[in-house]
């Protein structure tokens, strides 16, 4: 029981991170109908930026952990957003009117490029940060196993919740969100009514990257290590989360992320961690076969 509770906490933490990445997938798919396969690598890149800055600020400049993390987080969001903006401009925008697979293949190219760029510059091995904020709150004690909730886990879940709320507000209440929804339904008509479709799409990429950067920084904080191949697996899992939740749906992405996080940790606990990725990806296959529009998606969404 204690172990189940502990894994529940771990699963929700991991799921929050997947959820934040999944929002980027789902938004981009919603607005231009393209799966941005480079999104996972953008997440990895943001974790690396945060890692370098954290080490620089704490080890070389002697800053305390908390301000250093805030600076690293903000800088990572800004740089990653800039990077994704550039990718959209260079690799996707020109292909938008082309056949459907063209931007997809371009995205895979960007993904390979990013992963290899980081491998070449940072090496293929795990890079780690010194542990920070290791305080925990004991939820149960005295039993066979002490269930704990760390400050970091609280931070991750709280940040995810706050960002989701803020983002929901943007989509529902601001001109940008309205333009996004209009472009999603009929981009040509939106353009004819004066909506700047290119700008709307670019901002969607920027927001998606900023959310991925939050996820990347939190991932680094929680697990302490990152390596250049970490873009692929978490990226595909976040994609699975987006599909499970219903691609195109914002709350669906977060719900899907939480479910994937839970499935993965529970499977790892009870059936052994060798097959935990298989479990997560089986969910992708099962969802696509039996429920292609996902848990919260609209029907008739085009599938990849």
């Amino acid at each position, binding site marked *: 029981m204690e172990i189940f509770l502990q894994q529940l906490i771990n699963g929700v933490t991991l799921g929050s991170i997947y959820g934040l990445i999944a929002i980027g997938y789902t938004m981009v798919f919603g607005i231009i109908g393209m799966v941005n396969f480079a999104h996972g690598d953008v997440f990895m890149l943001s974790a690396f930026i945060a890692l370098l800055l954290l080490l620089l600020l704490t080890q070389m400049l002697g800053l305390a952990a908390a301000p250093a993390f805030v600076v690293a987080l903000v800088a990572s969001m800004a740089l990653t957003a800039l990077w994704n903006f550039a990718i959209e401009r260079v690799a996707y925008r020109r292909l938008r009117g082309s056949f459907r697979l063209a931007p997809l293949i371009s995205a895979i190219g960007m993904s390979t490029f990013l992963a290899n760029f980081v491998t070449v510059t940072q090496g293929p091995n795990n890079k780690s940060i010194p542990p920070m904020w290791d305080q925990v709150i004991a939820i149960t004690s005295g039993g066979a196993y002490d269930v704990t909730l760390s400050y970091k886990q609280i931070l991750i879940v709280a940040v995810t919740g706050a960002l989701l709320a803020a983002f929901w*507000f*943007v989509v529902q*209440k*601001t*001109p*940008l*969100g*309205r*333009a996004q*929804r*209009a472009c999603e*339904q*009929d981009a040509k*008509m*939106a*353009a*004819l*009514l*004066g*909506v*700047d*479709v290119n*700008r709307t799409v670019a*901002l969607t990429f920027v927001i998606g990257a900023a959310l991925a950067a939050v996820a990347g920084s939190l991932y680094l904080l929680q697990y302490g290590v990152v390596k250049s191949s970490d873009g692929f697996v978490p990226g595909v899992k976040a994609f699975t989360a987006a599909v499970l939740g219903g691609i195109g749906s914002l709350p669906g992405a977060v719900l899907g992320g939480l479910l994937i996080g839970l499935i993965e940790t529970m499977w790892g606990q009870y059936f052994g961690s060798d097959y935990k990725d298989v479990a997560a990806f089986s969910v992708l296959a099962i969802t696509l076969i039996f429920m292609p529009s996902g848990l919260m998606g609209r029907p008739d969404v085009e599938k990849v």
Partner: protein
Amino acid sequence: MNWLDDPILRVDHLTMRFGGLLAVNDVSFAAGRGDITALIGPNGAGKTTLFNCLTGFYQPTAGRIAFSSEKLDAEKIETLTRSARKHDGETFLLERMADHEIVRKARLARTFQNIRLFQGMSALENLMIAQDEALSRAAGLSFIGLLGLPSWRRAEQAAVDRAVAWLDRIGLKKRADDPAGSLPYGDQRRLEIARAMCTKPALLCLDEPAAGLNAAESHGLAELLRGIRDQGETSILLIEHDMSVVMRISDHVVVLDYGQKIADGSPREVREDPAVIAAYLGVEEQEEAVEEAVLSGGGA
């Protein structure tokens, strides 16, 4: 005779060829400022093709489309034509511009034969989207909007007021928050026109606005269009099959048949034009029968 004295749009020798098909063949006409100009003709006459050339959906094979919301000056058009430019800020050569440029710079708005509302968004939001250009500028990429600064609130309020005024005018104020897709067909048609008007166009191009409407609805539509014309809000160019609507509201009628212009003038002149009658009903028909048919709105 506004279209001769003070045109807002002048089409010269426009030709559109699709492979071996000559859809529009050397058509020239002008639309008057403040007028309702109707473009009519039998099926396949090239009306929609011509519309698509005007609004930048097609690149015409040959010809010139000059447009100015201020004053269309022949000399300026010539100067602009000889230069490589698309516009001089006042006079626009539409055949050189892309569709979104035509909308944003020259301020043409158009609707389509099929309804293209944002079905999942509310009626009010559909009208707000049409004002997005000004709003998103005021919102500073929505960051200022998030902070709720006064300048943004004023812009948002002005846009809402405008949208609500239009909803009121088309009788949909009570259904402002309903999804556009759930409205009756006739209401959707009028909502589309209101949405186009919210972009503050200099010329409103309507492709068969009365298609699929019953007699009462098309009467309401005619009133709406006439109201827009009478208040001098914009000039209107429309394609229409419903002759009762065309004859009731148009100031000027241009008739196309097989891609060529066969008549051009006031509704009365056009109705009595033998070429038009022949195009609509064939040359064999008795003229009285023709008159009657056209008058009773059976021309389509």
